[in-house]
């Protein structure tokens, strides 16, 4: 199909298409390129009138050393892993059985329940922020990891994504498992989850990106610096450095962006499979 489309379209269209895609890629990548570029430069060069991609005088070591020593950046990144990892584990524990029940089991009220899940997708997190805050205050969990993790343990998006994927799993696979002696929960973990691995990975990447970058909620429930997630850490960093020292700041930004980029690149192949919805080929 690809060879046919190349043969069928002219060189002019090819150039145009690449130009449009190139422009899009440039607009997306430019902030990241500038971030990395700045993280390598001494402060004198950052505001120099002429912009250069690479620094004249390499200052990378100093910037990154500052980023990791002046603030506990490593701690923030560790917090990021603890929080996003726990959230994703909890989301899987809830989303997979829910999605299975919504996609493959027959029960009264299933469609209504699915409508509620869809409605849940429409509610912005800020709406529930104050009740959740009060709840956490009442159970005495404010300023803990649990305060950041608990409100995100159920992902309606995850339920929705996994349900859509589970719909493509043939019913006979589940029937075969039932005859082979698997219970419904065993079917979820032993049959559905491995079959839906591309979707699990896609959901994992999306969940990781979303919760790693989440700023609003950790800012509200966490005061202690040692609990700060990476975005909070960058803000602490900016405050501590009075917001002028852009070299180390951008080094810190690069350091906290890197895990996301690495995670995405590692999962890219499955990510595409996962969002294009094919369970059993």
């Amino acid at each position, binding site marked *: 199909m690809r060879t046919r489309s190349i043969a069928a379209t002219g060189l002019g269209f090819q150039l145009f298409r690449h130009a449009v895609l190139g422009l899009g890629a440039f607009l997306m990548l430019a902030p990241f390129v500038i971030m990395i570029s700045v993280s390598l430069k001494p402060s004198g060069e950052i505001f120099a009138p002429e912009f250069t991609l690479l620094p004249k005088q390499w200052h990378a070591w100093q910037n990154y050393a500052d980023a990791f020593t002046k603030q506990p950046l490593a701690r923030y990144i560790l917090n990021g892993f603890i929080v996003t990892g726990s959230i994703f584990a909890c989301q899987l524990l809830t989303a997979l059985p829910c999605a299975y029940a919504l996609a493959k089991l027959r029960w009264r009220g299933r469609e209504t329940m699915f409508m509620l899940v869809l409605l849940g997708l429409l509610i912005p997190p800020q709406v529930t922020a104050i009740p959740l805050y009060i709840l956490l205050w009442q159970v005495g969990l404010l300023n803990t990891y649990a305060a950041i993790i608990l409100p995100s343990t159920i992902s309606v998006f995850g339920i929705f994504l996994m349900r859509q994927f589970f719909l493509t799993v043939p019913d*006979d696979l589940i*029937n*075969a*498992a*039932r005859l*082979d*002696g*698997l219970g419904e929960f065993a079917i979820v973990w032993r049959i559905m989850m491995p079959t839906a*691995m591309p979707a699990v990975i896609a959901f994992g990447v999306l969940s990781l990106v979303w919760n790693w970058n989440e700023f609003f909620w950790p800012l509200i429930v966490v005061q202690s610096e040692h609990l700060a997630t990476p975005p909070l850490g960058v803000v602490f960093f900016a405050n501590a450095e009075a917001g002028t020292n852009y070299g180390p700041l951008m080094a810190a930004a690069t350091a906290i962006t890197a895990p996301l980029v690495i995670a995405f690149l590692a999962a890219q192949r499955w990510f595409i499979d996962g969002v294009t919805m094919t369970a059993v*080929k």
Partner: protein
Amino acid sequence: MAGISLRNIRKSFKDAQILHGVSLDIADGEFLTLVGPSGCGKTTLLRIIAGLETQDSGDVLIGDRMVDDLPPKARDVAMVFQSYALYPYMTVAENIALPLEMRRLSALQRLPLAGRFMPGARAARAGIDRDVKAVADGLGIGHLAARKPAQLSGGQRQRVALARAMVRRPKAFLMDEPLSNLDAKMRVQARTEISELHRSLGATFVYVTHDQAEAMTMSDRVAVMMGGHLLQVAPPQVIYDDPQDLAVATFIGTPEINTLPGRIGADGRVEVIGTPWPVTVEGQPGAEVTVAIRPEALMVTRGAASDAIALVGTIRHVEMLGAETLVHVVASPLTRPLVTRIEPSAAAALKKGDPVALSTDPRRVLVFGKDGKRIAVRQSTPALTPAARGVTVHV
């Protein structure tokens, strides 16, 4: 090993009734085939036996035990699915081992990683591996143990599905069109293999297919289903020679049985195109009937029609199939050609457009009422027909 009994099974989906009270007794060790056109309810019936669907009313007994309230895994039956339903991310060996793992290992022993160190797990696993290997080798797929289903051919997948069903030695095997995804050549070979498997296991097989060739070649008994009703349950040859319903007669047999419109005359003889045939039936005189004759029961005679000849016509088409020849004859005033199956040597001189006469042995004429049910023939004595007196009867 166990027999299976179905008692008045009914099932509806939404407003559509799929099964209208099906009762059937399947003997221990029997190979019974449920055959019928798609949508006749045969797969639903199989799934009710397996416990994957719940009947609206009626009982299922497996080995004299009522299983209506038992989940599929407690019924101790194995199923081979049309799609084979192999777990795509597991190897062949893991696919075959799963039913044994679920039965022989405790929940703790099944845990990933840690389960290996639970007491008794090692011995149980070794036993499972041994049984898996024995079954896989028996089916000639032992060398594929480490492959994933996606790397296998259709025939290999079908064997893996069979192996997964066999490995736990179930009371009965339920097979839902297991050969329909194979190419024609493989299918013929697999037919023999499944028959041999049935003989060597001695287990009860319930086999669902829409392919009458599979039904006829493999079964001890065939159950023909149409529109949610069980029309006839009998050995293959009886289904073919002695169908009790017109739908059964037309569904089974290739080419299809010839049907002619007729009515019962005042003397009880069947009249076809106004001519009384030497076939006397029990029925209301004047009632409309359908007369059916298998293609091989019709004989073609060349030449002009005599007075005794009831059906004369012209050849529309001669189909040479090698071992046999099919001659299509249009007998006016009928428009649909009648098909006869004859020896190639007898057909050598026949060609399109030839005028011919069709004759048959009256004992091979089947008569069906307007409701499709078979009407008993009281008398079709060839002794009284012109044939017995030395004249060929041409019906």
